[in-house]
């Protein structure tokens, strides 16, 4: 379990995260949603130690974040942000092998090789493993970075907009992999995501943010109401039940 209590972050005079508190549970996918500039990515960065917090407290597996050793934390928590330098020429397999670094410090054991094979297979990259990253499409490249996080095999997985710029097929495949990580392997998966319908279909819990504050959080059914969604996004929402899924219609 990761608990965030009353996190604050100010850039210049602007408060981007304001007294945000939440918890991420194992075995669940938690999606952080909200309009642009709501502070979602900053919150995710703080929770995964990439950005320093101004004040508040973060506890990971009951240990305060500042008491974690960075190298040790890399075996427990992985985070993938956007804007990675993809100009460097690594093969897919070399990239995925980086995920094992925290465990083996670069000297891959047979167990590491197995986990790499496994991660490649999970994201359907086995046939592409010897291609260079700059030879792949955007979707395949994103799959490769996610495969790296899968190979890192941590209890907590943070992903910042994993579906950005991806087509529907890649998006669905990635969400299915994340759901398996949470439900079958008991990991806590936390994603920042813009597509509410993807969040509604695959996430277990939602956290809705606006202007740095947490507006509401809870199960998908609790958060996804027409009134709350309209308030968060400032446009009218209609929410329909189709099959066992909730689908938001917000096209005016």
């Amino acid at each position: 379990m990761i608990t965030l209590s009353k996190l604050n972050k100010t850039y210049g005079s602007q408060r981007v995260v304001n007294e945000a508190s939440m918890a991420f549970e194992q075995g669940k996918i938690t999606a952080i949603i909200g309009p642009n500039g709501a502070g979602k990515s900053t919150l995710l960065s703080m929770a995964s130690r990439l950005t320093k917090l101004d004040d508040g407290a973060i506890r990971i597996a009951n240990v305060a974040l500042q008491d974690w050793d960075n190298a040790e934390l890399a075996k427990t928590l992985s985070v993938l942000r956007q804007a990675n330098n993809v100009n460097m020429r690594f093969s897919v397999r070399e990239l995925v092998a980086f995920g094992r670094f925290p465990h083996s410090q670069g000297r891959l054991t047979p167990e590491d090789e197995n986990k790499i094979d496994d991660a490649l297979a999970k994201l359907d990259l086995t046939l592409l493993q010897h291609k260079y990253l700059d030879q792949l499409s955007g979707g395949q490249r994103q799959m490769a970075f996610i495969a790296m996080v899968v190979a890192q095999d941590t209890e907590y997985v943070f992903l910042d907009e994993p579906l950005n710029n991806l087509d529907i097929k890649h998006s669905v495949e990635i969400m299915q992999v994340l759901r398996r990580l949470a439900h079958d392997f008991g990991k806590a998966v936390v994603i920042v995501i813009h597509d509410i319908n993807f969040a509604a279909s695959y996430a277990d819990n939602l956290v809705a943010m606006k202007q740095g504050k947490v507006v509401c959080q809870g199960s998908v059914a609790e958060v996804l109401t027409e009134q709350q969604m309209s308030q968060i996004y400032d446009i009218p929402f209609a929410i329909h039940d189709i099959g066992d899924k909730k689908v938001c219609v917000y096209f005016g």
Partner: protein
Amino acid sequence: MAFTPRFAASFALVMLAFLACSSLFIGASELSLHAIWQGNEQAWQILTVSRIPRLLAIVLAGAGLSVAGLIMQQIVQNRFASPSTTGTIDCAVLGYVAGMIFISSDALWLHFGSIFLCAMAGTLILVRFIQHLQFKNAVLVPLIGIMYGNVISAISTFIAYKYDLVQTMATWTLANFASVLQGNYEMLFLAIPACFIAYYFARQFSAISVGKHFATNLGLNYQGLVTLGVILVAAIAALAVMTVGVIPFIGLIVPNVVALIMGDNLKRILPWTAYWGVVLVLLCDVIGRIIIFPYEIPIAMIISIIGGALFIYLILRDKRHG
């Protein structure tokens, strides 16, 4: 692949051996295998005092500078970074000039210290500056680096004018292996441990080349590794500048050409980068000795011509692919 690794390795060794022999036996004073075989004292003296030191200096400087360029490219995440495009070399020259003025002692290590500290401080300043840049345009980084280098270089020249050292500085900065003799190049051997340290941390450097967040996620100390990289680059550049002079482009073109063929996995390409650095410097040095035999053209000129052309090609190629 048509080349098996074993074939490539044997071919590489044969080529290196051939170039090394050419380097040993080409020169103003004649040296024949026969004389050495017969134990001719003069022949042996030429070999041990001049030719072997020269060969070793070429090998060490070529390998060292190429590896330094490779590390630099990884820590600033830019293909066009190298000791000569990030101001490292210019700062080293500044350190050399400062050393000539302010250090009265002849002790080599004192002068090395001055060159090394200047190179390191100057490079750290530029690297920190680049880290704060919002737009990391591929060509912008070396442009800033070259401008920065020119400013530093202007300071060195100004100081040199003031103390009447312009001529010394000019002769000395133009790389030339002809002046390498037994007794004045041995410090270059320090490039060997520097390269081994770089090899030991190869995977870490590879990881930081992807980005700060990427490295932090893997539990690495990003800023610490950047500093370590800068120290290694500055040390190698300082050693080369002190014993040989300024060899431009080598740290730029060798890693780029190797990465083009073999990718960016540092652990795999570092030994090859060192190898091709040696081959290129050896080749240029031999050419420089042949063109107007028995006189010599300094290696800096030969390598500038080849390196400049290759650099422009790489930029154009990058534009087409980017």
